[in-house]
């Protein structure tokens, strides 16, 4: 179980680094997917430890929620492209203070 959680933790950290350092909005969304899938892996690992289906059920929830999130996210990406003519997330920073 430790190895599973360790792998999940590593993936999670990689995804987080991606979210923090990437500037392209599409890559940020991909990094978010990596983070969410890492949590899914952690749930499956945990479920395996207790021999319960709960972990896998949670994985399905995470999967469907990630899909919904990406659907909305890509719609926003299209709007960003139209408004700012770029996919650079830093361009969308008109509000400060």
């Amino acid at each position, binding site marked *: 179980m430790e190895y599973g959680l360790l792998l999940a933790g590593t993936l999670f950290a990689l995804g987080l680094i991606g979210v923090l350092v990437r500037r392209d909005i599409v890559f940020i969304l991909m990094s*978010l997917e990596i983070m969410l899938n890492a949590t899914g892996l952690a749930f499956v690992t945990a479920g395996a430890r207790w021999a319960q289906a709960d972990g896998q059920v949670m994985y399905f929830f995470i999967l469907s929620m990630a899909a919904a999130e990406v659907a909305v996210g890509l719609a926003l990406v299209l709007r*960003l492209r139209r408004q700012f003519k770029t996919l650079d997330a830093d361009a969308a920073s008109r509000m400060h203070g």
Partner: protein
Amino acid sequence: MTTDDLIALSPLITIAAASVALMLAIAFYRDARVALVCALIGIALAFAMLPVAASRAPRQITPLLILDQYALFYLGLLFIASFVVALLADGYLDKLGGELEEFYLVLLLATVGGAALVMSAHFASFFLGLEILSVSLYVLIAYPRRSARGVEAGIKYLILAATSAAFLLFGMALIYAELGTMEFGRMASGMAGVDVRRELLLAGQAMIFVGVGFKLAVAPFHVWAPDVYEGAPAPVTAFIATVSKGAVFALLVRYFANLGDEVFQSFFPALAAIAIASMFVGNLLALAQTNVKRILAYSSIAHLGYLLVAFLAGGSLGATAVAFYLVAYFVTNLIAFGVVAVLSGRREADELEDYHGLFWRRPWLATIFLTALLSLGGIPLTAGFMGKFYILMAGVGSALWLLAIIMAVNTMISFYYYLRVAFMMFRDAPEGEAAPGGPPPSLSFMGAGALAVLTLLLVWIGVYPGPLVQTIRSMVAGLR
């Protein structure tokens, strides 16, 4: 699942069914007014189901959901807030133009998410409720199609909320890996076990708190709040400030009440630090703002800090203070953002300059806004004052002297920026009637009624809080 279970679930089922019905209605007949009326009827029906469901309370419905007095109280609060937001959105969206029907649909869905949150007693329902709420909010924030600020706010919220959701989930996974259960009620006994690895549990709880903290916009996790508040349409900002934060806070209180005193004590220093940081960050940064929505954003960060003080006081007095303050906070914020929504035309009327001489132009609206500002500041005879009074009482009762003193100091600081907005409204009107901001603000009949009723409620709670406190006491007594 028995009939009793279904009856107990009826408010949730009603509002979910209403959103499906509205979706079908939009598919066949597009009309913003019809969509609004459908949404209002749906929320009203769900609210009417509360007494029916109450006859079966307290009741655990499957391991996922629980319906008790506590859940019923917050369900009622959420439904009322969504109802008001829908009314406010009506007049606001008319001025924007475009396709408006789906706004009400997504608003209903977000309400479903909030309702699931306050009823949840399991990680799965916690997560699902939070995500239904979040994903609906991404859409609501970026709803006006021509607004660049809306897109920016939507993307910022999406990235940060999704990251925090991932943190939350990973924390849940760690706790599940250690305890083998995801039910709140069974965690306390699991944690008492001898062969449990404390560090994993602690890491899990901390990650869950990161996720929750983002939603609440408390101090280290508050960076999104000002931008999102500014960029989102004013009614949506009202929704974020009230329903989204209120539902999450209600869940937080239930979660810690289930985990028991030991876990609560181990988190006490961290939570106290967050409360202090939120109060200072919110109030000090608000001083420098010139945008009313940003001022309200920072003020809401500070208000969540006050709420954490009440939460830390613990016990039934603390839970009473939390519930009372949340009611006051809901009413006040709905009024404040409602006034911003009413004043906004094609452009958001959120610069301080837009409020220059408002009292001489629109005396009633200015009076209503003034009442809300005084309540936010905590001037006597308003709900905000009674809320702060109860929090201080709970804090002093639990001997949290440092927190109580810091809260009092912060209340003093906050007067400055609330009164700055208030004074702006009483300045001499700029020459001519030409108000900055294009078309004259319009107010639908129902929106005006909602604002008036809320203002009366605000003063009524402030002057005569007895009945509300009685309701809250009986509700808190059943919390476990």
